[in-house]
């Protein structure tokens, strides 16, 4: 598997660390209890297009990757500023 780093271009999977779904980008308000439940634990697990977060360890860039869980196609990788 190869993923696009916005700084380094397409790189081998071994250079990345996986975090999880891009849901992590949206922090609920501090007192939104059910929002935090969803944020921490509920995931949609789509068959098809999904967005998740990967750290390109060599350069220190977090990447929001859009890929397809059915075809395995990796569609894009953008820095987090552009991902929200």
């Amino acid at each position: 598997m190869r993923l696009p780093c916005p700084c380094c271009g397409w790189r081998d999977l071994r250079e990345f660390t996986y975090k999880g779904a891009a849901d992590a980008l949206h922090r609920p308000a501090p007192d939104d209890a059910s929002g935090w439940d969803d944020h921490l634990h509920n995931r949609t697990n789509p068959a098809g297009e999904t967005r998740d977060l990967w750290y390109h360890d060599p350069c220190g860039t977090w990447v929001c990757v859009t890929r397809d869980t059915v075809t395995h196609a990796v569609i894009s990788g953008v820095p987090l500023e552009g991902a929200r």
Partner: protein
Amino acid sequence: MIKLKETSAVAQLRLPTLTGCTLRALPPVRITSIAPYPGQMDALRAHLGGFPAPGEVVTLQGTDLVWAGRDLAFAFGADLPDGLDAFCALCDQSDGWCGFALEGAGAGALLARRLPFDLREMTAPASARSVLDHLPVLVVRRSSDRFEIWVWRSMVQSALARL
């Protein structure tokens, strides 16, 4: 009063003999990391005379600015102008890294076998961050058959074993 002595991380090491290229340790050099703050890139470029985009090496009066990561460049060599810290974080990294020069007609082929990225995309001068097995490296391509490989001081022995 004592005087502290320096110890080289590489002087005692036996460098591997490679075919088609030579490997030698680079002398210690002053390395300063430069990390521009958000929105300060243009000001920094103006003040410094340039700043490398990802994968670039910019040479300014004896100092090489080598792209070294996200929002990060390493300045190799001489002193930097004063007043930079208004635009960026500066940090001395001289003791954290050890460099090796890999030179010769076979250097590119040897590195290409070991590194998990497409070395053909590095047109000298260029820099890249990657891993040598699980070991972080900064690769600088000076010319088509001359590379510099920078690794963390504590991992020098492991790095050599992987070349």
